[in-house]
């Protein structure tokens, strides 16, 4: 089985273009002993959706957090359009066009929807004072026209009082508002209804057409298969498969994932 995957890695066509983000030999230890990633090479090309898959604890969220600047790799390098860049904080990653929906740390419960959406990137007037009116209007527009959330009446509702799906929708709304070059989505639909999940999957395909790059982490292989152009399988912190959609089909993919 491992043989198959190795050929698959080689079979993945080397694209002529430089990837937007390229990570080389990424290793991550937590607290010096827990190895979450080992020697992972990961790239994000322009205008593609990568399905990042793997078992619980495989290291998917760790990889996402390294790209988003929240965690620093123990070893390895990150290149943005071929230029080595240190993602020393999430701010640096954002400045490089990366917008993230995390699996578990997106929202601040004791703040309202509007303040959550703009948190850290507030619209201000002079001297850092909040332009509440402007933020209000933008949030209103966003929730009315772009990412409508079932049961939301106003951007002033406290996030802590929302349902799991509504919270996830607020995270999505924020990512859509600030989307730039790359969207990292760590199980963004785990709490959404079937209908909203489909709408979301359609939406990210449109974003790819607009030129965005998207990394989608999901345990639902059908969702990944539906939208992704490439699949990247992690197992116990190591890359075991990096294959284009054209090189595989859903049965083979399922088999490989289950085997690991």
């Amino acid at each position, binding site marked *: 089985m491992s043989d198959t995957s190795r050929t698959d890695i080689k079979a993945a066509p080397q694209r002529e273009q430089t990837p937007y983000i390229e990570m080389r030999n990424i290793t991550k230890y937590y607290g010096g002993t827990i190895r979450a990633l080992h020697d992972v090479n990961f790239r994000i090309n322009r205008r593609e959706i990568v399905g990042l898959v793997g078992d619980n604890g495989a290291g998917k969220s760790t990889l996402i957090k390294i790209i988003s600047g929240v965690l620093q790799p123990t070893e390895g390098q990150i290149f943005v359009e071929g230029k080595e860049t240190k993602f020393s904080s999430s701010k640096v990653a954002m400045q490089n066009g990366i917008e*993230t929906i995390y699996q578990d740390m997106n*929202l*601040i*419960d004791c703040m309202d929807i509007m*303040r959550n959406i703009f*948190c*850290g990137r507030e619209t201000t007037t002079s001297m*850092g004072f*909040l332009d509440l009116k402007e933020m209000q209007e933008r949030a209103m527009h966003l929730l009315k026209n772009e990412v409508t959330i079932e049961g939301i009446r106003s951007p002033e509702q406290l996030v802590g009082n929302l349902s799991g799906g509504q919270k996830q929708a607020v995270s999505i709304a924020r990512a859509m508002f600030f989307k730039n070059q790359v969207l990292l989505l760590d199980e963004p639909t785990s709490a959404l209804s079937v209908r909203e999940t489909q709408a979301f999957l359609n939406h990210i395909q449109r974003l790819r057409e607009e030129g965005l790059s998207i990394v989608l982490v999901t345990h639902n292989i059908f969702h990944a298969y539906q939208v992704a152009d490439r699949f990247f399988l992690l197992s116990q912190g190591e890359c075991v498969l990096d294959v284009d959609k054209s090189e595989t089909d859903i049965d083979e993919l399922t088999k490989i994932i289950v085997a690991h």
Partner: protein
Amino acid sequence: MGETNARHSGARALFNRVHGLKSGNILIVFVAIQVIAIGASLAFPQDFRYLSTSNLQVLFRSIPTLGIIAMGVNLLMISGEFDLSVGSTFALASLVMAKLFNAGTPLIVAILAAIAIGIMIGGVNGYIVVKSNVPSFIITLGSMWFWRGIVLLVSQASNEAFNPGPGMDAVFTASIGPVQVQFLWFVAIAIICWFFLERHKLGNHIFATGGNVNAARALGINVKRIKMMNFMILGALASLSGIISTTRVNNVSPIQGEGLELQAIAACVIGGTALMGGRGSVLGAFLGAALLFTVQDVLLLLRAPGYYLRLFVGLIIILAVVLNEILRKK
């Protein structure tokens, strides 16, 4: 009939609006206590002198010492940290100011030095907390004793007189009718804190840091810097409070300010500030500090023995926290 109804629903709407405020609960309790105290004072002007000028002066003079510190404690607690060393900062800043002034340093320099000492202590506390990741409760417990030790060492455990003259009195402690200047300082600081917390992006970052530190960091907020900043603001306010209080009593005692740290936390908690961070309001902390002194004052006016004070304050704290928790869950 229709008119009473309209008035009724108007009152109801007002009640709902007040109740909807972040500090609505404490505001209602505070107003209720004031109404009772003022009513009793009007009914029994001879026995219960709540509204007498001398009593109002006592209130307006006592509240700011705690209140100014509570403003800083409130910011720090909302960002998820504590500072138990503010009482020691309060004393050291006062002592440094008095010593410098008595040694011939210009008054303004002595005052600025006192403020600088507070900012420095806050900065050291904050630096150790964010670098070590040890809970600030423990770090500042150590800091509280350390700086109190320094105060005792420098003062040789004796009082230091401070008689800066009429200019300083005018700025900090003069009376305008029953109100004293130090109360105006308190109000001004509270207003500034409100704008900072509710209308400035750093205030937003303070709530985010205390509400969910991982999310705040992931959103690009420098949570360490936010916490450091709050420790330093609190240090400056503790110094200012010490300066005002010392100007009022013309004296620095080496044990002055002991217990202020817990009273300030109590004032914030009564006002609805969460112990775990993320929630709180300036008006709540303001009223919390005022409420503690109002209760103390009422007990004094009723000539209740001193131990009633602690007993009542203890009850108020527990009731306030439990009530806030219940109302929040609703």
